[in-house]
């Protein structure tokens, strides 16, 4: 990958963030620290999984996205959306009504991204067949690909080097329009994202140089827009717009949606913390010989995406029912509708490891830091309370050896130092304010947080 920018979709709203420890504790890569009373995300470590967003009690995390007003810039406006969008709506809203609503919102072309899935299935099967490293790991979920790059670098060669459906669909849509004589600059492609990871992947493609997507729309946003204009009755027949959609496409982003094509020689794991456990084992060769491993960061796959509005289980239910009305991918001749270019565009560039968890690039220095971490850990209480602004004692010790934290950041050590009159009360208070901000501990009945957040 060339010129990797550290773009992340997830940002912190400093006004909203009240400085608690929910996100910090939920982050699977320990990327969050609390400084000055607000969450700070370490861009090197963040994999855009969105668990912080899910954990936040005050909605302080947001994802950067484009508004529908961007549509006005283009003559042809293509909406690219994953099938899970349909699953957000109650059954009374037929897919026809949803399609109609999208046209009403100003889109000229509607494209469910799972349409060229037949091509993707063939490509993945070929890659798996010729692979020397098995099991091959799906590259579908960008959060998982990033997780492997940084935390499991030994497994990067196991990632199937194919592109994501949304990029393929964008290429596909652009080529179809070009065939009709439309110029590229007249086309605006808008991807409706179910999660932060896919948003970041569009802005900072993994294994691709540039993304074919022009604009990013939050699925929850689009849901609101659709609900505003959707009709009770269906007026036009939008079925031809779905003529290439298949059962396999609709199921693709759900658990086992990819793995089912490899039958019993495959395994599917969802939920990033579950994925971590499997990857640990895979690194040790403790996973049975399989052809294909489907790993998805969210529980219930994309039906559990953080930008979705519906219940994940109801979404799966609706999509499974829906899929039964569609033919299998193998029965649709996608070559007739797809363009020549798409086949070459399928291949992604090599995905490189990123050693962000190493203590130092110099091994001797790293070893020295590791010894120091051990010595510091003797002093820390091991409560993992997070009061220092780091997720646990070990993380604090690592921050210390990297020069990002001090012994006195630990409130228990502080207490000891106070008893031993090694520091003053003023100094101790200042330390607390460093992590939690000024006046954070004043009595305040309107203070956010600390009230029934667990339930």
């Amino acid at each position, binding site marked *: 990958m060339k010129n990797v920018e550290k773009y992340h979709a997830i940002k912190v709203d400093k006004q909203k963030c009240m400085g608690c420890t929910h996100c910090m504790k939920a982050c699977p890569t320990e990327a969050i620290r609390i400084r000055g009373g607000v969450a700070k995300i370490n861009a090197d470590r963040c994999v855009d999984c969105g668990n912080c967003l899910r954990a936040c009690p005050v909605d302080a995390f947001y994802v950067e996205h484009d508004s529908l007003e961007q549509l006005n810039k283009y003559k042809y406006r293509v909406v690219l959306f994953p099938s899970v969008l349909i699953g957000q709506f109650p059954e009374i809203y037929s897919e026809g009504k949803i399609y109609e609503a999208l046209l009403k919102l100003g889109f000229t072309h509607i494209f469910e991204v799972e349409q060229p899935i037949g091509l993707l299935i063939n490509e993945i099967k070929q890659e798996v067949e010729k692979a020397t490293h098995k099991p091959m790991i799906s590259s579908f979920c960008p959060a998982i690909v990033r997780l492997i790059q940084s*935390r499991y*670098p*030994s497994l990067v060669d196991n990632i199937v080097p194919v592109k994501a459906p949304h990029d393929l669909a964008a290429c596909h849509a652009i080529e179809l329009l070009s065939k009709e004589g439309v110029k590229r600059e007249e086309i605006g492609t808008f991807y409706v994202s179910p999660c932060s990871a896919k948003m970041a992947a569009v802005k900072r493609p993994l294994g691709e140089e540039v993304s074919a997507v022009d604009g990013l729309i939050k699925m929850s946003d689009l849901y609101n827009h659709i609900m505003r204009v959707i009709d009770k009755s269906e007026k036009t027949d939008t079925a031809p717009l779905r003529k290439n959609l298949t059962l396999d496409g609709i199921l693709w982003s759900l658990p086992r949606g990819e793995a089912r094509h490899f039958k019993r020689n495959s395994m599917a794991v969802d939920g990033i913390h579950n994925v971590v456990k499997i990857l*640990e084992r895979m*690194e*040790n*060769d*403790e996973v049975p010989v399989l052809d294909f491993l489907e790993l998805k960061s969210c529980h219930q796959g994309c039906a559990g995406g953080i930008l979705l509005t519906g219940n994940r289980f109801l979404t799966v239910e609706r999509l499974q029912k829906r899929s039964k009305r569609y033919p299998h991918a193998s029965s649709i001749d996608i070559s007739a509708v797809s363009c020549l270019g798409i086949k070459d565009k399928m291949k992604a560039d090599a995905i490189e*490891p990123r*050693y962000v*968890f*190493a*203590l*130092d*690039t110099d*091994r*001797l220095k*790293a*070893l020295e830091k*590791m*010894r120091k971490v*051990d010595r510091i850990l003797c002093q820390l209480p091991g409560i993992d309370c997070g009061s220092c602004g780091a997720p646990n004692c070990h993380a604090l010790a690592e921050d210390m050896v990297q020069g990002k934290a001090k012994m006195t950041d630990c409130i228990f050590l502080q207490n000891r130092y106070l008893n031993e009159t090694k520091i003053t009360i003023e100094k101790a208070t200042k330390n607390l304010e460093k992590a939690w901000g000024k006046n954070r501990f004043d009595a305040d009945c309107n203070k956010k947080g600390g009230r029934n957040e667990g339930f």
Partner: protein
Amino acid sequence: MKLEFEIVSGDFSMAGKASSQIKKKLKQLQVDPKVIKRIVVAIYEAEVNVVAHSVGGKMVAEIDGNGINVEVKDAGPGIADITKAMQKGFSTASKAVRNMGFGAGMGLPNIKKNTDEFNIESEVGIGTTLTFRNNF
């Protein structure tokens, strides 16, 4: 950097603890993933050996700037014929151990295969000491 682990006889659920802890450290030292894999496999096999065959023992791993030295010492029963034990497929594991998926007779040969230096000493009634080294 020294890491010590007690290995309890018969506790298969804990086999793998030492190898994953050591793996974590080696990753923080940015050791080549291929080398890490060899080390992890060797240590895991050694752990299983102590759990499955001995009355219990101890593992000491010492990481320096250029590699890792591992010593695995158990308190018996000892190996009667080391040459035989080093052969692929030779195993004295009980049926119960085999039923758990261990005891295929690949342990010691696999450790040797995955290490750069390997030494085994054993005395019946006293115990077995395994030492190996992997260079980074």
